[in-house]
């Protein structure tokens, strides 16, 4: 797959279709892959990588890259194409300046899960028939592939590319995913249990903004949290309120726009399951206003900029579920 991608990228560079390629760059170790812009065949040859760790959603870079001169080639996994569609819909990217090659999606691996097994000093990770052979300084370790899958891949919503100019490999389908299971589990807890759950999680927050800065829906020219005039600007999670405030407002701002790419939780240095907040909104929207998946298309009206005369009242929150 990696070879095919490199070759096709080289072709498109050579024939002048594109001037740059967005993909992933090899790191120091087996897993520390960095999104990168490649400008030459040589760079592609030496650094381009596509493997079980290339999980980063590179669509957000298109905000910057598609505004530049010349067309840019981007490799997008199915989940990433939803993000691009949403960015297109919100006029944040210039789709005409982007050449999308759809590539197969995950499941991708989560190095944190491997490390959580106590495996350290990792030198290489090989997938042999869905068993990971991990070479370490302390000898070889093995673990099942399935136990090291990124959370976002374990609850994948779709293998379908919703936008592309060409595909490498077969296109898949929208999946009947289990992604709302955890949200539902929380919904079925008591308010006190939910409160305790979220306090434990959100109290870990160090307000590093990684979730916001990686989020393809968070492309504001100036974020309210960086704007002293917004009334919610803050830098430090110095009180439980600020953590709550930050995450509630952020989730609300991306409600109806979040494509559920799962990057927020993937990059959180404190492993806070932030995607659950976004999924809660998606689940509510689906249940209350009809199924809607942001990024599925570029024309439909987003649930929060739309309404029907017989929408449910806010009191529905009081009426349903466990108190």
């Amino acid at each position, binding site marked *: 797959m990696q070879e095919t991608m490199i070759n096709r990228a080289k072709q498109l560079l050579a024939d002048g279709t594109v001037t740059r390629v967005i993909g992933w760059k090899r790191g120091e170790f087996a897993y520390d892959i960095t999104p990168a812009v490649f400008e030459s065949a040589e760079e592609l040859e030496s650094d381009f990588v596509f493997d079980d760790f290339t999980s980063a959603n590179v669509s957000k870079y298109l905000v910057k890259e598609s505004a530049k001169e010349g067309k840019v080639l981007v490799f997008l996994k199915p989940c990433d194409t939803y993000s691009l569609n949403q960015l297109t819909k*919100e006029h944040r990217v210039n789709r005409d300046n982007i050449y999308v090659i759809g590539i197969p999606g995950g499941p991708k691996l989560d190095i944190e899960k491997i490390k959580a097994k106590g495996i350290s000093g990792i030198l290489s990770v090989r997938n042999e028939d869905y068993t990971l052979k991990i070479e370490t300084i302390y000898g070889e370790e093995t673990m099942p592939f399935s136990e090291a899958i990124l959370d976002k891949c374990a609850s994948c919503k779709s293998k379908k590319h919703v936008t592309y100019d060409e595909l490498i490999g077969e296109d898949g389908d929208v999946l009947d995913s289990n992604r709302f299971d955890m949200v539902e589990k929380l919904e079925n807890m008591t308010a006190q249990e939910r409160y305790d759950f979220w306090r434990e999680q959100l109290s870990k927050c160090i307000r590093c903004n990684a979730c916001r800065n990686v989020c393809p829906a968070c492309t*504001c020219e*100036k*974020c*309210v949290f960086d704007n002293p005039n917004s009334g919610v600007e803050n830098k430090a999670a110095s009180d439980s309120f600020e953590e709550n405030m930050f995450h509630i407002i952020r989730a609300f701002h991306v409600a109806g726009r979040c494509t559920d790419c799962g990057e927020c939780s993937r990059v959180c240095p404190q492993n806070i399951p932030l995607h659950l907040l976004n999924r809660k909104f998606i689940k509510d929207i689906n249940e209350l206003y009809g199924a809607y998946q942001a990024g599925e298309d570029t024309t439909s009206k987003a649930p929060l900029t739309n309404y029907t005369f017989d929408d449910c009242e806010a009191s529905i929150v009081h009426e349903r579920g466990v108190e």
Partner: protein
Amino acid sequence: MQRIGVFVCHCGTNIAATVDVKAVAEALGHEPGVVVSQDYQYMCSESGQNLVKNAIKEHNLTGVVICSCSPRMHENTFRKAAAAAGLNPYLVEIANIREQCSWIHKDIATATEKAVILGRAAVAKVHLNAPLIAGESPVAKRALVIGGGIAGIQTALDIAEAGFDVDIVEKNPTIGGKMAQIDKTFPTLDCAACILTPKMVEASQNEKIHIHSFSEVTDVKGFVGNFTVTIKKKARFVDETKCTGCGLCTEKCPMKKVPNEFNMGLDNRTAIYIPFAQAVPKVATIDPNYCMMLKNGKCGVCSKVCSVGAIDYKQEDRFIEEKYGAIVVATGFNPIKLDKYDEFAYNQSPDVVTSLELERLMNAAGPNGGTLLRPSDKTHPHKIVFVQCVGSRCDDSKGKPYCSKICCMYTAKHAMLIREKYPDTEVYVFYIDVRTPGKNFDEFYRRAVEQYNVHYIKGMVGKVTPQSNGKLHVQASDLLANEQLHIDADMVVLAAAIEPDKTARPLATMLTTQMDTNDFFTEAHPKLRPVESATAGIFLSGACQGPKDIPETVAQASAAAAKAIGLLCKNSITCNPCVAHSDELMCNGCSSCEKVCPYGAITYIDKEFRMPDRTTKVRRVASVNPAVCQGCGACTVACPSGAMDLNGFSNSQIMAEVDAICK
């Protein structure tokens, strides 16, 4: 540094009885920025206002807080007073300590405490008030009326009468609309054509009225007072300026088998046609779907017989652009299609007709020259069954949930006319309810029952089955007698529900006006602003807003005209300065705000920005038209970056109030 004056009103004892006004004035005097804090018996009185004015001048105040009655009462009074003293009127805030404090609380201590808090919130807000200046925008002295039925004609006549130019855009080759197809009108039974056609002629002869027949609106830009509209004049292949309407071409046209839409397809017309004798403009139109010349270049008869050379087979659609100050929508209605009503055999028997078809069958200018004959065998019908509410008041998806309003009356009219002209014909009317609210309406209906012996039966027709003998077997229930009825009828007339014209929905989008779920235009207020749309400068006339009969339509048409005239009389409009504005530096151009704006006040422009690295970048940013924005603030919440804010109710002002209240 702010210099704020606080003025606490006693309102006689209205406030002073439950709120210690002196204590309020004293407490608010300690608030940051407050340089003067006074109380007075009646702040709204002339001497009270003078107190405020003098304080503004004496202390050179930058903001004023009046603790008094509701701002809905006297906000304007105090704004004017401030303006008179040289302070921008929007630097005045009212703390409502009467309706929302003294009048609802009894305990002086807690009421006083609350009054202080409300005053404090107003002080906190006024700190952040900015002087606002109401903008003005000029008004183009021309109106557009979309739709040339009786509603559009009446509106245009009234506007023209007031001395303004007005254009009528009508999609059909002639104006006149549905009323032109109607035979007689209720409750007076006078002839529709006799009262309509003079108005049509009047419209065509009024030099202020410009009729664009066979035309459509394709684009609307701009805002109240300043709309730019593109009108498509569809090719009719006849030069309107040359055609005299002599009709020779329509006689000679060899293509005579075109269903005549004016007669509801009950007879035929030619490929080149004038819809009816009194059409305005009386100009022929070639139907390109049937004209042999246009289809395969063989014929050309009309061109040969036309003595003025009006025929132009090469004519193309033309687009014209015009500026208008006001737009009146009068797109009218149509009866619904009855394809889904198999039980009434509408598609199976030509003798099952809609009420509008019956109008044509009975009309002297209709297919039978005014004699009521069965369409199938041209015999005289002896038994006619009318079915009410076909598709109206329906709770399933087949029909419409609303009452079409006009059917009860026109059916009574039909029944009466038939019984009058053909006393040997029996008439049955099956109804759910008979609704006759209107001047002389119920009397009219009772005449049908009592004087003309029309059989009114409460109940629904279950099934109509065409028989081999040409009769229609009608199976129905009589709910009052609680029995099943079987009638062998010669004709069945269906009172089909009416629905807005299909062109209304795309038009509403162009006009950024609201529609309800049934595609009727929504008025700005159901009671108090029935002929205005929520979009400033767009008015509603006739059935496009909801089912209406002719008198109601005409009344509303004149009302819409009056509203339009009121607007056109002004040289410019003063805009509400409490409108939204977008900070271009923060705007993402994402269109969220545009999607929630009920007025179409937000557009996008590409703007060049200097970037931090000293390059320039062109970015799409929102721009609010202050003349169109009504200041609801929906956009401010839709905006994720907070670029959109509202004058007079800014994010920081509201949060300052929250802070002050929660202090």
